[in-house]
């Protein structure tokens, strides 16, 4: 099958980018979207052109490296699917596919479809950890965790930090990412000592990095490949308010 792609090409962070149209032949329905780009890049290399730069690593949907805005939707049209797990059978060969990088001021474009997502690391550094005593590993049953808390925490911990929530948010907010970590750690007994300062510090850092504010549109949850629920944001807000009310900082 032959597909028509309109791909964002940009030679460097400060260069002006533009959409370039390519026709890609020899595509099968069971190819992933990244394999489509592989096929395109092989041809570009043979022709002596620069291949399209894009992020990818595990190609199993668990590492969080890949991420493309496909026809205006982060990770493409399939629900709860990363770009690497998205298959060409979901696309009509007659319709050109527009491929763009994540668009957000804190995610500068490095090249073509690759963006720098270190801003999310800065948010984690601000509080996405627990203070654990060093030494021998504690027994697995030493700290009891209620089953519902463990389940909800685990769902939130499924966040792979791909940044699709930011890419999809009309406000360019990283709220779902931050809320996933705050929910994950804030529900577990090990996360209690820093629970409220964590929420406040991570939110403040996120704002300082230039992400937008949350208006609860739900665009983030709709594209999240791990289905992080919007409820996590209410939990983050709850902990931030509690932080403001409890300790005069």
């Amino acid at each position, binding site marked *: 099958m032959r597909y028509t792609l*309109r791909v*964002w090409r940009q030679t460097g962070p400060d260069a002006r980018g533009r*959409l370039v149209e390519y026709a890609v032949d020899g595509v099968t329905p069971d190819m992933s979207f990244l394999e489509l780009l592989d096929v395109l890049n092989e041809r570009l290399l043979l022709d002596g052109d620069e291949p399209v730069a894009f992020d990818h690593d595990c190609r199993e949907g668990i590492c969080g490296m890949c991420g493309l*805005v496909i*026809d*205006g*939707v982060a990770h493409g049209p399939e629900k709860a699917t990363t770009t690497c797990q998205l298959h060409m059978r979901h696309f009509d060969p007659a319709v050109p596919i*527009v491929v*763009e990088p994540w*668009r*957000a*001021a*804190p995610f500068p474009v490095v090249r073509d479809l690759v963006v720098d997502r270190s801003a999310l690391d800065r948010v984690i550094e601000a509080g996405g950890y627990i203070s654990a005593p060093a030494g021998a590993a504690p027994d697995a049953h030493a700290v009891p965790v209620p089953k519902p808390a463990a389940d*909800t925490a685990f769902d939130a911990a499924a966040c792979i930090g791909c940044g699709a929530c930011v890419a999809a948010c*009309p*406000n*360019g*907010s990283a709220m779902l990412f931050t809320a996933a970590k705050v929910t994950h750690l804030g529900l577990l007994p090990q996360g209690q000592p820093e629970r409220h300062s964590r929420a406040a510090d991570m939110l403040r850092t996120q704002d300082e990095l*230039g*992400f*937008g*504010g*949350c*208006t*609860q*549109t*739900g*665009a983030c949850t*709709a594209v999240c490949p791990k289905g992080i*629920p*919007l*409820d*996590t*944001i*209410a*939990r983050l*807000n*709850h*902990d*931030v*308010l*509690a932080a403001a009310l409890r300790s005069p900082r």
Partner: protein
Amino acid sequence: MAVTGGVLLLYVVAHMAGNLKVFAGADSIDGYGRFLREFLAPVLGHSGFLWVVRAVLLLAVVLHMTAAIQLARRARKARPTGYAHRARVPGGYAARTMRWGGVIIALFVVYHVLDLTAGVLNPHGVEGAIHDNVVADFRHWYVVLAYTVAVVALGFHLRHGVWSALRSLGMGSARRAAAVQAAALGVAVLITAGFLSVPYAVLFGFVR
């Protein structure tokens, strides 16, 4: 945003409930108007209570708009380069129209105050004759249309606003999310229906 919105919502609920006195006759609504003007008059003076309420509302509106403008400006700064292919925000019609819906409501409030508070734009326009002013207004289909557009815009604004505000205040995580959704929809529908009942009752001759 959530707190100022909450203040404005409390006022809107009281206003809607007060409006329903139209159905109890001219004496009831005009008497209610006199009561509001004389409420706490020994302490605050004639109409003093109303001016306190107006001051609080004005402050809430200004802060609400300031927060909205800050959010919109942050959003624009957070995405200096837009997408060539834009998908719809999946948050529903109410979420998409918060900003421009708010502008429509603000413009309507200016007209509404000139119409039924100051009486300048009212076809009857006699101070204190609330019932007659209202009836004179809503005999005209275009006035009813203007009020309908604004009240429906308010309904959509509340549909997303109440939901968003409760969650900004940390409510509605997991188990209570459905309850918060239902509360937002319920408030929006009740307020819209309550406000629209008066103009349509006049237009169709139930209140004359």
